[in-house]
């Protein structure tokens, strides 16, 4: 009896799927708009979106390590360019010792931020104070409404996890920052409706090609590096991408170190365990 009901249920599901299949295929076949190979409609995004270029960071791969000099340069780029609009709220000033700064330098960096929200101790009114190492990086705007008002109705996202919150990670960030260009004539010809709206900027590395952020790194020398590195747009983009890998994954080096120890130990112990297994079974045919 179970088998009859089961066969009925199975044929019912298969039947409904067959109907859905026919309708789907008919829908695709009768739709003459241009499509990509998966059947989705062709659009400016499918044709002109570019995949990220390799940023060539030292932190990439299983042997990845941070280049602390590069992290410090990237931090400088963040502080002088990006922090105007983007917050870094999960990073505390004390974490910056991971960049190679001493405790004293970290104290000085923290004290350089004088907009930490606070309360006037006498009147109780909202006030600001100088930062201490225990503080996190302050928000760029008081709230979302202020952020939108200052940025053409877009909220600049927090950058703490940016290299983990996007496909392509650091390569995406690097490619985006160096990828601003004029909208290609071919795009305008094929998709005239996809002209970049006013207030947005064309960037083929961005998901829908038109990003609200104007190119933040515009010219060489925007940031004055103190270690002799040439502050080209390419270098600044790479350095800030490296810094953002650190903000998103400060434990990367520790993780890799423990990882090697764990893998080597487990390889060794698995080998021993295998030997023990073979020894136990030596006299038993199996």
């Amino acid at each position: 009896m179970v088998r009859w009901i089961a066969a009925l249920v199975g044929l019912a599901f298969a039947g409904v799927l067959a109907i859905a299949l026919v309708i789907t295929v008919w829908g695709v076949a009768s739709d003459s708009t241009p499509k990509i190979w998966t059947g989705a409609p062709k659009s400016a995004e499918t044709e002109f979106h570019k995949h990220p270029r390799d940023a060539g960071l030292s932190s990439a791969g299983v042997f990845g390590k941070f280049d602390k000099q590069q992290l410090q340069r990237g931090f400088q780029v963040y502080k002088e360019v990006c922090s105007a609009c983007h917050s870094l709220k999960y990073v505390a000033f004390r974490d910056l010792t991971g960049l190679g700064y001493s405790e004293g330098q970290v104290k000085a960096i923290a004290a350089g931020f004088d907009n930490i929200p606070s309360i006037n101790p006498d009147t109780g009114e909202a006030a600001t104070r100088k930062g201490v190492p225990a503080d996190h990086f302050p928000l760029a705007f008081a709230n979302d409404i202020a952020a939108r008002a200052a940025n053409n109705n877009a909220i600049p996202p927090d950058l703490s996890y940016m290299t983990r919150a996007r496909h392509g990670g650091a390569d995406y960030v690097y490619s985006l920052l160096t990828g601003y260009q004029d909208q290609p004539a071919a795009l305008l010809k094929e998709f005239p409706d996809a002209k970049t709206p006013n207030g947005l900027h064309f960037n083929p590395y961005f998901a829908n090609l038109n990003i609200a952020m104007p190119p933040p790194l515009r010219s060489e020398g925007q940031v004055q590096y103190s270690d002799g590195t040439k502050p080209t747009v390419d270098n600044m983009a790479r350095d800030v991408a490296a810094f953002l890998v650190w903000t998103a994954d400060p434990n990367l080096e520790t993780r890799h170190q423990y990882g090697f120890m764990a893998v080597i130990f487990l390889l060794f112990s698995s080998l021993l365990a295998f030997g023990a297994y073979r020894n136990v079974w030596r006299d038993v045919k199996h």
Partner: protein
Amino acid sequence: MSFPWANHYEPKQPFMRWLDEKLPLPRLAYNAVGAGYPVPRNLNYFWNFGVLAGAALAIQIVTGIVLAMHYHSDAATAFSSINGTIMRDVNAGWFLRYAHANGASMFFIVVYTHIFRGLYYGSYKAPREMVWLLGVVIFLLMMATAFMGYVLPWGQMSFWGAQVITGFFSAIPGIGETIRIWLLGGYAPDDAALNRFFSLHYLLPFVIAAVIILHIWALHIPGSGNPTGVDVKGEQDTVPFHPYYTAKDGFGLGVFLLLFAALVFFFPDMLGHPDNYIAANPLQTPAHIVPEWYFWPFYAILRSFTSDFILPAKLWGVLAMFGSILLLFFLPWLDSSPIRSNNYRPKARIAFWVLVLDVLILGYCGGSPADPLYVIVAQVCSAYYFLHFLVILPWIARTERPVALPNSITEAVLAGKGGTSPAETALAH
């Protein structure tokens, strides 16, 4: 299991004899996983996966309990309690988080292998039907636990995944929407839903542990199956679990931990979705909402039902998605062939491998956007999935001519072929 030749527990030290009289736990362990449990001697590595599943559960419970000491289940602070506090400030917090997140994936890898072992070798057939039924219950509990656990970080995928899954309840005609709101504690996933998900997520693993105890108990009544599917006939067919299978499981555990370490320490985000590093935003829908990889085949089945036919398409999808797991409960009665192992069932073996391919393709479609190509492929593969269990297997069981079974396990072992792995069977024929 009462094989008459099983070793007997004989405590020698006075304290152990006292304990054996008052609370015979060592005796229980000896009879369950020690030298007192005879096991067929011809088990292959696919039999390691039960113990590995237990190990994965233990890892999840230990890492989960410690994580729960630092996690805030409040919608406003959940994301930062994990990504701000645990990952950065808690000592080894990053390790706990990665171990728990990737441990869930390891748990499903192991359990899927364990299930497919059961499908291939007929482990669900008499007299082990109860083992199988309890196993399906464990699987359902695992899926509920994993779903709720993924919501807890309150990232974009957490929130929108919860939105999609809880939306299933509104497919129930009439009372569906009321049930959905009652379960969520609100009109959409929010603080109320998050808190109750945390409570249940903490509870269910212990329910799983209890059902696992029943699962192993039910197995130990008839004893373990084996790759030939032939019953144990005498002492020469078995070896005591300890030290033979404790040694083999120790090696298996080492390999499992190696793979686990590779994920946790070197590729912690590989199986996750970048969108879950963005805090949940009810006003911004992600471009593609997908669950974690272990739900992809079921997600593909859900999305295959694109047309109304008597019932709305959404209801068909939900019924099919749950049906695809519930049909497993009936498998012992659908597949009526008395031959257990597919090593001796040529037609069933072909159908099995087609099913494996089918599920893998469904998984790929489930993780892809709902473009027409993936929908069409998923529709075909979903149809095969249901036909496989509900039509093809019963039909094969009735019409198949199996290959001759060996007379005993020992005979198969001594003959050296056809008794152990599917690969050996394929080469032998």
